[in-house]
Each structure stands twice: as structure tokens, then as C-alpha cells.
């Protein structure tokens, strides 16, 4: 069973089980269109979870991603409505996301504040700024050329899914193949040891929050395009889904341990649960309870096997 442990197959097993159960209980589940739908529905959370993985690997947390998403979406939407080229507005939004992340990162790394508290603060702050900026009103009438980002397809696969796949591969390569990735893991494993080994720990800490902020902005653009609206309340509670995906994927909240593959599997588990509950017509009152239980079971599956050492 050591390969099972080494490659942390617990989450994958959970996903496979879910898919099997749903394939049996619902005819619509295992169809190409439904599966593509699951992927599409998962993409926003998956992007947030990819950023969250970077942060959690350093033993941090980013509660502000939902608010960052809302803030950057509102800004981009307003600019586009004002006539700015959608590409330009999009790139500007990504930059703002990065700046928001850097703000978190600097407070964590240089002011030595606890990530939980910092991002709890900025979560409220960014949400507040969004409300001020939008006057609490949704922004409509986005240009048609912005429609494709969320609703278009390439080779029958939705654009958001493509974007997620590309981001996943880049992030996966960074974390598992590059020197920077090694250092991020090392910082999460033991920051002091990393510092003594000459790692510029503070810079890396800022960097992971920047990554998280940029990906939150990207997720926001996709969401805005899909809904053709920027809501000031967009992304509310998304941070928790992202954290859940990361943890389901076997990443330790104490840092230093976990993989991006796990995170994607975690995000897919969440997406499949949501999709399945809808297909099975489970009343929305029950949905949360069932979802919560499935999450707990999946996490227990994972713990069982890591107990061994």
C-alpha cells in the first residue's frame, strides 16, 4: 500500500467513488454535456483553489479571495462600460488583484501579522471598497466582445475550462518542478530552516499572496463574463470553497505538504457533489447537509492512511 500513501490516492478514490455512485443513480450524469458542465462550474473555484494552494503551502491562508474577485470584477466592468478595451480592462484587473495580494503578503511577511487575521481584515476591506465603488449596484451592459471569455468554447470545450487547465499546468510546474516551488514548500515546512539556508522567505511569502490575488481576479473576470454582470456581492463565501478544495486534496493547513493535483481533485469533488445533488433533485434544504457530510467522509478517508507513520 505504500504507493497508495506516497501518491496520496485518498482524494482520487473519493472522486472515483462519487462518480461511480452518480453514474448509477442518475442517467444524465455520465454524459459529455453534463461532464463539461461540471468542469465549467468547477473552473472558478478551481482557479481560486490553485492560488489558495500556494498560500496554504506556506502555512498561510487567504480569506480575501472572494472580495478580491468582487473588487477586481467591478473595476473591470466599470472600465469596460466606460469604453475601455476588454483586454486592457482585464489585464488591469489582474494587476489590481496582484496588488491586493501584495498588500496581504506585505502585512504577513514584513509586519509579521497572522495570515488569518490579515486576510480576514482585507476580506471585509475589499468588499467594502467594492460596495463604495459600485454604490451597491450591479454593473450591466458589458461589451459583447467580453462575452467569449466565460461563454465561448474552443474545440467544444468551454474557454474557462481551457484557462483553468493552462493555469493548473503552469502552477503545477512551478510548485513541483522549479526551484521557487521547492522553496515555497520549504518555507511551509520550517520557515526558520529555509531562512537559514538562504531562502528569501519574505519575498516568497509576498509572492504567494500575489499569485492568489491574480488568480482571484482571473476567476472574477470569468464569472463576470458568464453572468454578463458584475455584482458587488460576487464571490461571497468563495474563499471557503477554495479552502475546502485544497484541504480535500490532502494539503496540510500547517504548510509544507500537499500537491496541486490533489487540489484539482478536491475542486472536482466539490463540483461533482453540487452537480449530482441537482441532478438527483435533492431539495436545496438538504444540499448543504449532504455536501458537508461528503466532505467529512472524504477527509476521513485521507486521514486514515496518513495515520500510519
Amino acid at each position: 500500500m505504500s504507493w497508495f500513501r506516497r501518491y496520496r490516492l485518498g482524494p482520487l478514490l473519493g472522486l472515483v467513488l462519487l462518480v461511480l455512485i452518480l453514474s448509477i443513480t442518475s442517467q444524465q450524469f455520465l454524459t459529455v454535456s453534463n461532464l463539461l458542465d461540471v468542469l465549467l462550474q468547477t473552473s472558478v473555484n478551481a482557479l481560486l483553489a490553485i492560488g489558495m494552494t500556494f498560500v496554504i503551502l506556506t502555512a498561510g491562508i487567504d480569506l480575501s479571495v472572494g472580495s478580491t474577485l468582487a473588487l477586481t470584477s467591478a473595476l473591470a466592468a466599470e472600465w469596460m462600460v466606460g469604453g475601455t478595451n476588454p483586454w486592457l480592462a482585464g489585464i488591469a484587473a489582474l494587476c489590481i488583484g496582484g496588488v491586493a495580494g501584495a498588500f496581504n503578503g506585505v502585512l504577513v511577511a514584513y509586519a509579521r501579522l497572522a495570515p488569518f487575521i490579515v486576510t480576514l481584515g482585507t476580506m471585509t476591506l475589499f468588499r467594502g471598497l467594492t460596495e463604495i465603488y459600485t454604490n451597491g449596484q450591479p454593473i450591466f451592459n458589458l461589451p459583447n466582445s467580453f462575452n467569449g471569455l466565460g461563454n465561448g468554447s474552443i474545440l467544444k470545450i468551454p474557454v474557462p475550462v481551457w484557462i483553468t487547465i493552462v493555469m493548473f499546468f503552469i502552477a503545477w510546474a512551478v510548485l513541483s518542478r522549479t526551484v521557487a516551488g521547492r522553496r515555497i514548500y520549504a518555507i511551509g515546512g520550517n520557515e526558520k530552516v529555509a531562512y537559514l539556508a538562504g531562502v528569501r522567505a519574505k519575498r516568497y511569502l509576498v509572492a504567494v499572496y500575489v499569485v492568489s490575488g491574480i488568480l482571484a481576479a482571473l476567476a472574477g473576470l470569468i464569472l463576470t463574463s458568464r453572468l454578463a454582470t458584475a455584482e458587488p456581492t460576487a464571490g461571497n463565501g468563495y474563499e471557503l470553497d477554495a479552502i475546502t478544495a485544497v484541504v480535500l486534496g490532502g494539503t496540510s493547513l500547517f504548510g509544507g505538504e500537499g500537491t496541486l493535483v490533489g487540489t484539482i481533485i478536491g475542486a472536482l469533488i466539490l463540483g461533482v457533489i453540487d452537480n449530482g445533488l441537482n441532478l438527483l433533485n435533492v431539495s436545496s434544504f438538504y444540499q448543504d447537509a449532504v455536501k458537508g457530510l461528503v466532505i467529512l467522509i472524504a477527509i476521513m478517508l485521507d486521514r486514515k492512511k496518513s495515520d500510519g507513520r
Partner: protein
Amino acid sequence: MSRLEMRAIEKGFSGVPILRKVDLTVEGGEVHALLGENGAGKSTLMKTLTGIYRADSGEILLDGVPQNFHSILDSRKAGINIIHQELNLFSNLSIEENLLIGYEQPFRTAVGWIRSRKLREQTRELLQLVGLSRSPETPVSELGIGERQLVEIAKALQSDVRFLIMDEPTAALTDQETRRLFQMIDDLKRRGVGIIYISHRLEELFAIADRVTVLRDGMTVGTYCMREVEEDVLVERMVGRSVENRYPRSESQPGDVILELDHIQTRRLHKPISLTVRTGEIVGIGGMMGAGRTEVARAIAGIDRLLGGTMRLKGQSVQFRSPREALEHGVALVTEDRKDDGLILPFAVRLNLALPTLAERQRLGFVEQQRERAFAEEWIRRLSIRVQDADQPVVNLSGGNQQKVVFAKWLAQDPQLLVLDEPTRGVDVGAKHDIYQLMNEMKARGKGILMISSDLPELLGMSDRVYVMRDGAVVGQLMGSNMDQEVFMALVARSQEVES
């Protein structure tokens, strides 16, 4: 008299046998040494004895009665206590709180309140007994590693012990404290307590042990009377080859000054410190715990900033603001606390070894996996680090092998100046020899080495010169015919008042 027997003990981890039929008999009132290479299974045997691990087979008898310990609490109840090799204190708690945990019974009232006065009094007594002059309320985080070891000893002395296991208790202690510990051991022995004593310092075994059992590769090689056995014989039984010269100091040909500290001061060093290290030279720093030796190392390695004085590297004045800057100038520090500062315990040996030199094995930012693996395997081989493979988590290595990993990762930097803070703590005789050879090799290639050591034979045996520190100041220097235990002790112990 009580008697403790372990018979045909076997124990493995996930299919890999570690202990293969080990026998050990210890009588009350004797000091029984346990000797073996790093990874021979000494700590594992003791953890099996105290119920932390369950033996796969074999039996444990106390006064002839078979015992079945399920946890450390069971064995403690039976009167067997252990002082672990790795420190197990809560650094966020105070000394007295640490003593309390696991021994709450006498200090709790009927409803569960803590009798703080009683706790404080008892803590004070115990601290006095082990010779640690700190107040019971001191947070453990403020203690040096040797002081923590004394707290561990105090902790183990709280309950009524019939057998006390000490797993390398002196690894972090200086000579002075070691003597104090030996007195305590003598007292315990007189009270009929049996002591199992694990150490890689052979001189100590000859000083206090009555008998010795040698383990090799998880098997008992034999039990000998300490008075009747030769050191060389023991070493050979233990490592399977003879080690000719325990401290193979090579001829030194000191070259230019590589490091010069000119009245430096830091947040932790209040008195100005001056010293020099030349290329092709091993310079020692000796002194008691708390004398400021580690603080000097921290200043050199860029951990603490200089607040006064100048530091020159090859004649150039330097100011390191971080360990990184020191590393860029070819200055590396092997830290003394491997658990907190040296290793990322859950990570693979390969990653720990690679960390400081990651940038050397990359292409466009990507780690060259093949080269990293080869690199790790080479260092594992060069220091004969005992691992299953390069991907084994460091936390599963024996203490001495962990130390070798720390040493290797800095050696791999190929620094110009290597600062060593207790480099061979917990390393077995054979491996120490290997490390000394590596130091000599560096010396021959014109590097400078500054070595802090509390192991006096090592300090005097390997250094070309020794600075002696006391109370945060350099109080003398030993060289040539002066390099002598007596002179050293006189310098260390002399207190300002009794100056004759």
C-alpha cells in the same frame, strides 16, 4: 535488587527489520551502557522497552515478571523512565509547566486546580538538583539547548524511578554540566536505581559505566565489563572495523587571515569579541553553556546584525544582513539545534540536503531532478548516512544520521569559511572520524573552519587553536603545548572574584 531483562526483542518498521533478537539485562544499582553506531537501534530498543513502540516479538521481564507496556505511562508506573535523545519540551510553556505535564497527579487539587506553590517549590528543588540556575517561571524558549536537556533530566527525576534510561544526555552538555550529571547518576546508583546510559562519548562510558552492551545492525554483539574491556576492542565491535586515531588532526599550514572579528557586538553579545581564523586552520571555541559561543556564530553567519566593531572577510569589511548574504560570501553555519534550525523534519533527506544549494542545480528555474538525486546520493554515500533511500523523511532517521544530513547540506555549499556549532553531537565514533576527515580535507584545500564544541577531547583533539569564552567574552587562547584539558578547565572555571 531489581533486575530488568529484555529477551529476543524484534521490531521493524513497515517491513524493514530494525531490531533482530536483542537481549539486554540490567541490574538495579548498575550503570549499563548501550553502545552502537548511528542507526544500530539503540533508541528504538529503548522506545520498545518503555512501551512507546510495541515489540513484534520477544519479552520484557521486570524482576522476573513479564511486562506488557502499552504506553509510556505504563512503564513509568512500573518505575521505568526515559530521557529521550530528542528534546521533547513545550517551548511555549515555562519550565514548571513543562515539569507538570505528564506528572499532574501530585499537583492537582480534588477539583483539578493546580497547586502552584507546591509545583514551584518542587521545580526549584529539582532545578537545584540538576544544577540549572533558572527560575521555574522561565519560558523554555529562552533556554539554550543544554539547559533544556537539564530540564528534561529534572522532569524524569520527578517520579519514583527504579530504572532510568538516558539516551545521549550529555550530547548537549558541557564538561562542567556533564560532571554534575555524573554525580547525580552516582547518587541514583547508590539508591539502587539501574541506569541505561546511551552515549557516543567513550570516555564517559569508561568514567561511569559498570557494564556495556554493544549493538550492531539491530543485534546484540555482546555485554562486557567496563573494567575489563579495551576502548579499541569496543570500537571495533561496534563499527566492525578499527578506528586508528580517534582525533586525526592534520598538520596545519595556516595561510592568510580569512575571518577577523574586531571588537564586534550584537544584540546578544554585549562585550566586544575579537578573534581570527586563517585559511587552512581549524579554530575551536570552548566554554560553558551560555558563555556566548553560539552568539558569536550567529553574528558571523548573518543571523544577528553587528551593532559595533568590524568583521572582515579576507581583509574586506563586511556587514551581513541575512544568512543569505553570508552564504553568498561563502560563509556557512552548521547550527546546533538540528530539530529547530537544521532540518525540515517531515521532508525527504534529498530535499533537506538540496535546500541551500537549490540554485546550483537548475535550468531556467526548473530543478534538475536527476542531478538532485545524484547529488543527494553522493552525500549520503560520502558521510555513510544510513537511510532506506534518498526520499525517506528525515524524521525517521536516527539522531546521529540526522546530524550527518545537517552537516552534509552545509558541506555541499563548499564554503570558504565553515562555522560549526556542535558538529558531531550524537554522531558515532566511526562517523565522527569521517566528519573529521572531511574537515581535514577542507583545511587542506585552504578553507577556514571555526568549530564550537562542548566535547572537550574533540575540541582539543581537532583544533589547531582554541579560544576560550566565559560570560560573553573571550578569556584566553590555547595553542601548541597549551592545548591541554587542565589549562582549559582553569580558564573556563576561573571566576573573576577568586582571581589569584
